[in-house]
């Protein structure tokens, strides 16, 4: 088991299976089709993201460096949360970006079930974690792999 310590942007405890995007995660491109066409698994629709394209995102521990793309990103993430299509948690290797922060915080303040969001986990975290790994997230920002 490997342990990493990050900063809880939205604190919480959760266990989930890792889904790893090594490149920037385009929120709009990834969720648009899933939200638009009622895909309950929320399969990633971003064809430019070869790591996770067409893989289910719902209920996963989404591991990523940052999000990229349209400034609607925060809103899209919030919609995914409310519509129960979001990951169980988001784990950022870098400092969270403003769009993802908006989505995670909107989900925390305006819904009853916040999505734990940890950032600053470091480059080694993203080099270590693999899609399919079991992940445990703790309130203080500790993340266990395996």
């Amino acid at each position, binding site marked *: 088991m490997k342990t990493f310590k990050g900063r809880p942007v939205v604190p919480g405890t959760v266990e989930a299976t890792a889904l790893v995007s090594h490149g920037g995660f385009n929120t709009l491109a990834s969720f648009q089709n899933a939200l638009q066409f009622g895909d309950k698994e929320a399969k990633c629709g971003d064809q430019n993201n070869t790591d996770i394209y067409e893989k289910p995102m719902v209920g996963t521990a989404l591991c990523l460096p940052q999000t990229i793309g349209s400034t*609607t990103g925060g809103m899209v993430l919030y919609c995914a949360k409310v519509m129960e299509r979001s990951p169980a948690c988001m784990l950022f290797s870098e400092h969270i970006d403003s769009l993802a922060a908006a989505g995670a915080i909107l989900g925390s303040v305006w819904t009853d079930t916040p999505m734990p969001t940890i950032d600053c986990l470091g480059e080694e975290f993203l080099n270590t974690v693999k899609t399919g790994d079991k992940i445990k997230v703790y309130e203080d920002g500790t993340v266990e792999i395996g």
Partner: protein
Amino acid sequence: MDYKMELTPEQLALLNGEQGETMAKVMKTLVMYGEAFGATKMVPVTSEMGHLVTSFGLKVMTPVYDLMDQLIAAGLKSKQKFSVDPKPVDPKVPSNFIKNFVFNKFMYTKQDSYDEQLRKLGLVGDDAYTCTCYMNEVGNLPKKGDILSWAESSAVVYANSVLGARCNRNSGIIELFGSIAGYVPYFGLVTDEGRKATWIVEVKCKKKPEAQVLGSAIGMKVMEDVPYVKGLTDWIGTELDDDAKAYLKDFGAATASNGAVGLYHIDGLTPEAVEMGESLIADNAQVYVIDDAELERVKNSYPVMWKDKDKAPQLCFIGCPHLSLQQLKEWTDNVVEGLKKNGQKKVSVPTVFTAAPAVCDEFNKTEYAAKLAATGVTLSYICPLMYMNNPVAKKGRVITNSNKLRTYTTSRYYTSEEILDIITKGAK
């Protein structure tokens, strides 16, 4: 809630619910957002108007409309009137039965009710739908030093860089919350330190660089950092006239979409660079030299997403971000000249020029309107990006001179000169 930043008694009152539970949640969202970026305080929004990014009544965004209803039910409203991004549909834009069906019966079924929500929250007028709210004809023109609560990456980078206003790259909803509370967190591009350049870009081209490619190259290199660009005034002058502003509008949109630039300084031209010069450059700034070969390399790296790359284009969009009045006139002259040179009467590819409704109105008052109509080009207020961002439209072969549109859709990029050549030559 636990927080580290310093709040004034007025801000604390909002957070503690003295203006109701919904306003307290708005303030809590803003405080948490600021804390995530190390904001030390909240500062008042000082601009006369706001600008929102979300203009589309997309059925799938129901949670957003429900949230808007909560704000309206609580009697909350933006403290400034605001403009908003362009509408996603315009009956004038070439379409077909399937597209119309998908747009009107499936995708944008919430447009009318969302427009009504925007009016209740403070939309300045029914023609305030544009990404270029800062055009004189539209009138949402912040002053230097104004603190903004805006979203729309191309408008934010223009306001920060060309107008000298101060705004972070906000997400949709956050910008509305800032306008409702009247405060934004003090971090990033709102601060003096956050406006310092961590990149020096040296433009060493032998011909005027295409704004959209230069912006793309810089965006991809510096990502969210602030670049200080030297050598560009050799090509666009030292005066912020209509030509320079239009160039910087397109350049900035490319920096913001191909990277995540929220502010750039142009040596000898943009207000802070004129005022403070190289003192804006942070210690240990990195250097990026751009010449003609580098721009060619960047342009050639753009993937072509069409299924059949050799087939003729089916649609052309010019105006992402929306065109200025001056650009509309220039494009009209160029298309008329091009058609004449090629012995044609109408453009060979269905072509749409897009601009703010207020700019379209002004244009339609001039002699250019009839000249443009005669070429077969459509003038529209539509958002090309929203038009293309769906499974039906994205299969079409669309060409554009916009690097933002290229980045977010399957459209194919050509320079303005190449586009002109394509649309004014006879169909193959």
